[in-house]
């Protein structure tokens, strides 16, 4: 399957993006750096970024849902195609067998007609 379930599950797990808390590895002043950056983020960028994150999450959810629909649809198509191929294979065999039988019957009829023609000639000769 082009869209396998494993890949879709992986996408679904990662469809939501989240804010990340600031961290700092600096000794002693690390908590101060985190506090300042968080404060600045709350003042300057959070109000702007959060709606974007929500918008992106909504888009991701819809995209994954659509991919799941497509996957189901493709799976159904693949199964339908498999059934059609199988039916077509049986039909091809039936048609071939019918053709061979017709060829044989045509040959038999030609034989009967030839015999009939011979018989007619014989009868004509007897009448003469």
């Amino acid at each position: 399957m082009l869209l396998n379930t494993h890949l879709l599950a992986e996408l679904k797990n990662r469809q939501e993006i989240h804010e990340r808390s600031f961290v700092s590895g600096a000794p002693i002043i690390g908590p101060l750096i985190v506090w300042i950056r968080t404060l600045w983020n709350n003042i300057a960028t959070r109000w702007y970024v959060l709606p974007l994150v929500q918008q992106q999450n909504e888009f991701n959810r819809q995209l994954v849902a659509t991919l799941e629909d497509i996957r189901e649809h493709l799976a159904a198509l693949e199964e339908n195609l498999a059934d059609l191929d199988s039916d077509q294979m049986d039909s091809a065999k039936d048609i071939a067998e019918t053709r061979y039988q017709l060829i044989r019957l045509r040959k038999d009829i030609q034989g009967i007609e030839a015999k009939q023609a011979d018989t007619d000639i014989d009868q004509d000769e007897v009448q003469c």
Partner: protein
Amino acid sequence: MLRLAYFSPVPPQRTGIADYSADLLPQLASLADVTLFSDSTSQHTESTLGDITVRHPREFQESRWNYDMALYQMGNSLHHTGIYATAIRNPGIVVLHDYTLHHFVASVTAGKGDFPKYLREMTLEQGMEGARRAWQIKNGAPTPLYDIPLTAGLIGRSVGILVHSEYARQLVSQRHPRSRVAQVSQPIPLPPLLDKSYLRTKLDIPREAFVVITCGINTPEKRIDVVSDTLDAFRELHPDTIWLKSGGKAAEAVPEATTDSLRDWVINVGYVDNLQKLSDYLMASDVCINLRHPTSGETSASCLRALASGTPVVVSDEGWYRELPFDCCPRVVHNGTETVQLEAILDSWHSDRALHLAASRSARQHMADNFQPRNTASAYIEFIESVLRYEV
């Protein structure tokens, strides 16, 4: 008289099935009105085929109503590309020379960039599980060349299937219980027996040597590596040993090819395109080694030609080989001890000439009893008639 449309590679194409048809066609043509459809004929072919009408395969579509049956010689190689396409479009009786066609089908579908076609063939073979496997293969899983025969599309359409061994017949019947399947023998003419000393002089082979021959296209399945190792060791004990190598090289690398030049006891005659000459080489030899592992369910024509020449053959303990008489065809089990087994067999024939003579006579008798082209042609006709009568 039946009118048959016969599709096959023919000489000068370098395939065993071309030789097969060259042996069968004259006999078949004496029992039926045969038209050969081939795009590879030459003046040489037409002169050897005598009165058989030869037409181009593209002419078949329009004239198909003129034939009581179409016969397709199908093997696992690209020589059969056109034949396969015609057999799918106009089903008839398929003579299946290899039980698995996976190499071929993969080559003409996914190998040419048509993955969807490969996917559909896999689905016909194994249902949705086959489709899943096909996607896995596309994503890098190894191609199961021997596990999945990929013949369902062809067998399912065909009105009859002919195979050359009971082994293959059972395999096809088990997988396709609705198919009409029958076994016919390969057509192998018995060559007249010629004096070995005379032949060796003619072919420039030392008269007193113990000659071991290998033939055919050198594919990895033929285990030439095993033969090479065995003969290296065997020659230490028996310096009169000569290795006569006949056959072409496969696309896959042949590892021992470069070392041949270092071994003055190896005679490499290359591809022998003349069956009479091949028969001379086989008859001039003491033993033929004909291993196949893994096997794709095929019967080996070169093995049978060796037996017809009165040369006993060491074979693999697999598939069709098990149907051959053990006294002239001892079997090697592929379990890691092949060289030991092979050496023991060669040693028994090298040291006991009476045993070797008995094996040689048994080989020829087996071929005289079971593989005459006339009988194969009769079996073909019998099967076609039974298919047309809806029997089998």
